[in-house]
């Protein structure tokens, strides 16, 4: 048990660090570019040199690297100051694996390299207002019309819809089939006529998500992935890659910052950190953060041994999000009445915990609520049985959706 790289890992790390050092965009390169342009510049640079999406096969713009090499690259890239390329995450992390599995060779050649290079941005359109935790309850329908499908309905919680070129989506192609069997999976041009995008404002004031409305939007049948009615199965490929990718959140509003605050503010005319009740709370949060960190090390080790991390990664969000909420609430209390002050747009530590307090409720819900995460652990990790299902084996159109 050690934290050292293997020989090959060390070699790869060195190579990656060397390239990064030599190629990190300079201030002059980035001058005058907006964040999106900066991201695209950097991503293209990486792609051209074979440092983008390195786990993908070379022919699709990747490098044929293994999982641990991806981790090492991320670590090294984390050490240098590069533009934020977060907007490529959904396309590269969720759309691409789905395309790899389900698209035609021609489609892969056409789309994957541009996904890797950041020349085209993708978004994911699964959730619907009626769906929530019950994703497969989606109602946006696609009706066949020759070689095309006509799409009508509404999607929600779509990150990046406003700047995406393409989107992956699941549609109901047969309302009379049982819930999970009436779905089909497509990808479409986000600039298609009939698509309307509205940002969703969150209680924190941020607007990271969108509602996307479809009115007679036409999608070619050639853009269907998998068979008609096989949509749920295809969607699982996409979803397998989602939950692992969502962390515990709270950002910098964690143990370290809370401890620093406790050293600064006073209780009983001495630093709050001397207060045993404060110490006990901080200790519990330290234990949780350390536990998650080392759980991460364990799955990274599994990765480097070629194992695929499973649903047990759900604990990151299940532990992290509520922890961050309680920690933020407690940190605000440490400030006493001054804790109520919050300048939403300011990013300084004075506002860190207040911002976290307002944004974490979303983290406890987005990408699977605490309750869904607990179900996943109970069912997929511990192998406990599902609840009785009243929505299976009957036509979707007959599944109760309200008390009426």
């Amino acid at each position, binding site marked *: 048990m050690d934290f050292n790289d293997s020989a090959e890992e060390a070699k790869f790390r060195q190579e990656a660090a060397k390239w990064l050092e030599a190629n990190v965009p300079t201030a002059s390169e980035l001058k005058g570019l907006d964040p999106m342009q900066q991201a695209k510049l950097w991503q293209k640079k990486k792609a051209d040199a074979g440092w983008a999406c390195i786990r993908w096969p070379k022919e699709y713009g990747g490098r044929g690297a293994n999982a641990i090499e991806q981790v090492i690259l991320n670590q090294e890239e984390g050490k240098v100051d590069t533009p934020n390329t977060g907007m490529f995450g959904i396309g590269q992390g969720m759309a691409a694996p789905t395309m790899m599995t389900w698209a035609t060779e021609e489609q892969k050649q056409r789309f994957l390299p541009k996904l890797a290079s950041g020349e085209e941005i993708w978004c994911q359109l699964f959730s619907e207002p009626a769906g929530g935790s019950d994703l497969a309850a989606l109602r946006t329908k696609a009706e066949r019309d020759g070689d095309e499908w006509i799409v009508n309905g509404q999607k929600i919680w779509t990150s990046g819809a406003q700047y995406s070129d393409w989107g992956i989506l699941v549609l109901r192609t047969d309302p009379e089939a049982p819930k999970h069997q009436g779905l089909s999976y497509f990808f479409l041009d986000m600039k298609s006529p009939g698509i309307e995008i509205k940002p969703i404002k*969150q209680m924190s004031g941020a607007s990271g998500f969108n509602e996307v409305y479809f009115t007679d939007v036409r999608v070619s049948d050639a853009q269907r992935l998998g068979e008609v009615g096989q949509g749920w199965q295809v969607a699982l490929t996409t979803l397998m890659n989602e939950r692992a990718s969502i962390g515990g959140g709270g950002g910098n509003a964690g143990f370290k910052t809370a401890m620093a605050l406790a050293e600064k503010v006073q209780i009983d005319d001495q630093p709050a950190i001397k207060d045993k009740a404060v110490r006990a709370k901080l200790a519990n949060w330290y234990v949780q953060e350390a536990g998650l960190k080392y759980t991460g090390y364990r799955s990274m080790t599994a990765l480097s041994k070629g194992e695929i991390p499973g649903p047990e990664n759900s604990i990151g969000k299940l532990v992290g999000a509520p922890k961050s909420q309680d920690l933020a609430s407690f940190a605000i209390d440490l400030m006493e*009445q*001054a804790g109520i002050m919050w300048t939403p747009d300011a990013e300084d530590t004075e506002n860190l915990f207040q911002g976290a307090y307002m944004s974490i409720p979303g983290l406890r819900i987005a990408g699977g609520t605490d309750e869904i995460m607990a179900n996943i652990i109970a069912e997929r990790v511990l192998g406990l049985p599902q609840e009785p299902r009243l929505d299976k084996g009957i036509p979707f159109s007959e599944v109760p959706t309200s008390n009426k």
Partner: protein
Amino acid sequence: MNFEFSEEQNLLREQARGFLQDNCSLKAVRVALEGDQPFNAELWKKVAEMGWTSTVIPEEYDGLGLSYLELSVIADELGRAIAPLPFSSSVYLATEAILACGSQSQKETWLPRLASGEIIGTFALAEAQGQTTPANLSTQGGDSLNGVKIPVADGDIADFAIVVAKSDKGDGASLYIADLNADGVEKQKVQTLDPTRSHASLTFSDAGAELLGEEGTGWQATQNIFNRAAVLFAWEQTGGSDAALEMAKEYALGRFAFGRPIASYQAIKHKLANMYVKNTLARSNCYFGAWALNTDAAELPVAAASSRVAGIQAYYFASKENIQTHGGMGFTWEFDCQFHYRRAKLLSVNIGSEAQWQDKLITAVEKQNAA
């Protein structure tokens, strides 16, 4: 024993709830959140006309001379309505301070106008992050006031403030009445987690100030005022907790997942049951708090701290789990869940946080045991 509100008090509750449903709906709260008005002045006027601001002020000062049980009922309903009003600042704190420490002439000067709602008062203690104590107080009193109080709840709309200033006498602090519309006072609005309740910084530069109570008795006075206010804050928290539970329940009953209402899943059922439990413990503690406050009982310090801790815990839990029960819509700006979550935090840091009151509770029990 009769551990219940009287028929008249329950009637008052019905009237108050009906009035607030008509005049302080969630829409009105949203206007306060999104609008640029520091508070709902029209609502304040009506509330004052109904005499809520004068509830416990003696008749000789144009008050109704009612009991703290009536005020408890009003606090409960104001909390449930998340009312965008400076009620706690003006009624639970400023009015109480003058009732407790004011001279005859001070009472005659301030109480009638507080009773009528014509003026709004507040209480200015905090100066920086962390716990304020006589040792770290920096605002100076004497013939004039100098210093910065930040944040002061409703500081930008209040006409006067009870200011806690440093004193080299007695317990290390003195209380002053400061006219906030006079020279030498600068009000600066500050942004907060709960824009439905305005906050400001108050800068005093050789500002006029009038001593309230004896010099060097301000710290103990503040503790006594906070003990009384704590019961009323706890009632607002309890009322808010019940409203949050009802909001969660209503949504869970109507929202379907996997073919049945989410309210039929134990994860949601037990979550709501836990809210009910915490709310009930808070409410029952508040009953005792109200009794102790109303009878000026020796148990007040214990009853106040116990109510306060229970109220803080219940409202935090109910407001965050109400959001959780709503799922995706719960954390949108469009939905109203955020109101409770914001107000819960405001009420929990005003007059001292959970940790302070847990400590006060045990201190009070120790004194009780020693007695």
